[in-house]
């Protein structure tokens, strides 16, 4: 897989590290709550937690500039929160409330917040890739200087959207960064068993794209790789494919037989928890403070989200903006 070991930047600014830690922690705790609510049947349907992968969302989003666009997946809580989507509105969406990001219409697999740059969370594998490619096309034509980022999983690299969009973006030199979160499984199927070559970053070469495999549990490494790719895109040098190696701590979604992952593997990856790793670099005080803050915020947002009303069924709604004319 070729993850490049990198030396940590020990001179890193402690405030910076603390901010990154808090950003990851907010996601971790938010999803703890989502799981509780899901088990209590308050979050209905299904849920896809990104716990264990927080460093990818946080590292990439930390490198973005205002005006950039992000397309995420059904496993999108991390990206949404890292991007600054209001946590209360996000939780309200998962709870199907009218104050949700999508007024409760979308649910977790369609979270959208255009103001924050989130063009959507896409429930169709590969959908995020097309959306980001399109946003980059708009950015290129309007020369607004923005870049688009697509998040997707290892499973998506075998899908039509991946191939056609990467080729298209490469040919057009679109300002887009393709961020693959390789968590080793697509649902319950091991990546290597369905991915010829089992080397995702290597697929960039097919499109003559720069590509890199990076430790996705090292938030600083993630940010650094994303920054470089974003800079390339912003400079008109075209797309980059980034593969972040990571692992999800929980199952794929609500239905998950679980047993498909060797316990030693889970164990090993739990040891590489991106939060633990960053915590080790922060002082205990900072970590404690972060937890206190994040837990307080969580409590408040849960109260607010759960207090919100469900959308009124009778309310007028249209599938189109304006009538045909």
């Amino acid at each position, binding site marked *: 897989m070729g993850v490049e070991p990198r030396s940590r930047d020990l001179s890193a600014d402690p405030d910076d590290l603390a901010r990154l830690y808090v950003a990851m922690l907010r996601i971790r705790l938010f999803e703890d709550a989502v799981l509780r609510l899901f088990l209590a049947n308050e979050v*209905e*349907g*299904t849920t896809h937690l990104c716990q264990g992968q927080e460093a990818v969302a946080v590292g990439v989003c930390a490198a973005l500039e205002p005006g950039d666009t992000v397309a995420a997946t059904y496993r999108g809580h991390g990206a949404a929160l890292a991007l600054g989507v209001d946590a209360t509105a996000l939780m309200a969406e998962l709870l*199907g*409330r*009218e104050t*949700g990001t*999508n*007024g*409760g*219409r*979308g*649910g*977790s*697999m*369609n979270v959208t917040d255009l103001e924050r740059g989130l063009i959507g969370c896409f*429930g*169709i*594998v*590969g959908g995020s890739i097309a959306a980001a490619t399109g946003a980059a096309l708009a950015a290129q034509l309007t020369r607004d200087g923005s870049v688009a980022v697509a998040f997707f999983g290892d*499973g*998506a690299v*075998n*899908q*039509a959207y991946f191939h056609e969009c990467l080729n298209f973006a490469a040919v057009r030199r679109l300002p887009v960064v393709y961020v693959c979160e390789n968590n080793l499984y*697509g*649902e*319950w*199927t091991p990546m290597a*068993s*369905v*991915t010829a070559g089992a080397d995702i970053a290597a697929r960039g070469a097919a499109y003559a794209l720069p590509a890199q495999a990076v430790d996705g549990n090292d938030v600083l490494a993630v940010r650094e790789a994303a920054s470089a790719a974003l800079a390339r895109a912003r400079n008109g040098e075209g797309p980059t494919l980034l593969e972040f190696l990571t692992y999800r701590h929980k199952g794929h979604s609500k*239905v998950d*037989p679980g047993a*498909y992952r060797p316990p030693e593997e889970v164990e090993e990856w739990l040891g590489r928890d991106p939060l633990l790793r960053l915590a080790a670099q922060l002082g205990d005080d900072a970590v404690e403070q972060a937890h206190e803050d994040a837990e307080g915020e969580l409590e408040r947002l849960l109260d607010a989200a759960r207090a919100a009303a*469900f*959308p*009124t*069924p*009778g309310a007028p*709604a*249209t*599938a189109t903006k304006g009538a045909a004319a």
Partner: protein
Amino acid sequence: MREVTFREAVRDGLAEELERDERVMLLGEDISLGGVFNATPGLQSTFGPDRVIDTPISELAFTGAAFGAAVKGLRPVVEIMFGDFLGLVVDTLVNQASKYWYLTNEQASVPLVVRSAVGAGARLGACHSQIPTSLFMGEPGLTLVAPSTPADAKGLLKSAIRYDNPVVVFEHKLLYGRKGDVPDGDDALVPLGRATVRRSGTDVTVVAAMRAVELAIEAAETLAEESIAAEVIDLRTLRPLDATTVVESVARTGRLVVVEEGPPSGGYAADVIAAAIELGGPVAARRVTMPDLPIPFASTLEDAALPSASAVAAAVRALS
């Protein structure tokens, strides 16, 4: 005859056909572990990884490959996890598989089955809840199957696997847990292309499929208390339409209500009404469907969007 769930009936049907005919094989995502709807558990360990294949997330490839394999004599059964993903394989089904028999001047047929979980009500949002019948209603050569009971889930699936032409089987995800008596082996076979009368009546014909059949029956029970005798027809096969059964019923009842979990146009509802009137003459008719909107996530909105027994009853009353 054993009482099993719809889900088990699907599994049993697959197991029996895999056992019976070594040309039968399964392709799908995560199916070795049973798949997301646990409809295929144990099949890979029984029939081996060459006949029960976990695929990449490449719906177009494995459905397209299933088409080619079917031409060459296999009888592949493809699982497209959610019906909402069928849009990705339209080209294969429409431009290749369904046309092959006719276009090759009958050199070979394409015994390909695509199973897919469909339907709303599970709070899965707009892209995991559709019943995309409309994608395929206009495709000559394609058969669309839509069971409403465990027995039909098994019987129609087995018939589909034995049929020499491409079939799409819609399995409504809210039905997977339903229980019912289901025969074994050949006794389980349910013919394709034939509707069945689930409840007899003389005042109105209510046509439905999949979960909507339950709503129609519930509505008929309510209406019976008002002395309206509704006949409930379960289409079982959406395409080709068993117009004979519908027309015969409507000839007796003089009124037609079609219940469809889907938007008003493009699905089977309009087709049933058009066929009934073309073949049987003018008659009052109504569609009971979902609104012309994407399927919402929030429970309040989704519940209101779904067709209901009371909406069916109201439509019947409006025609009376």
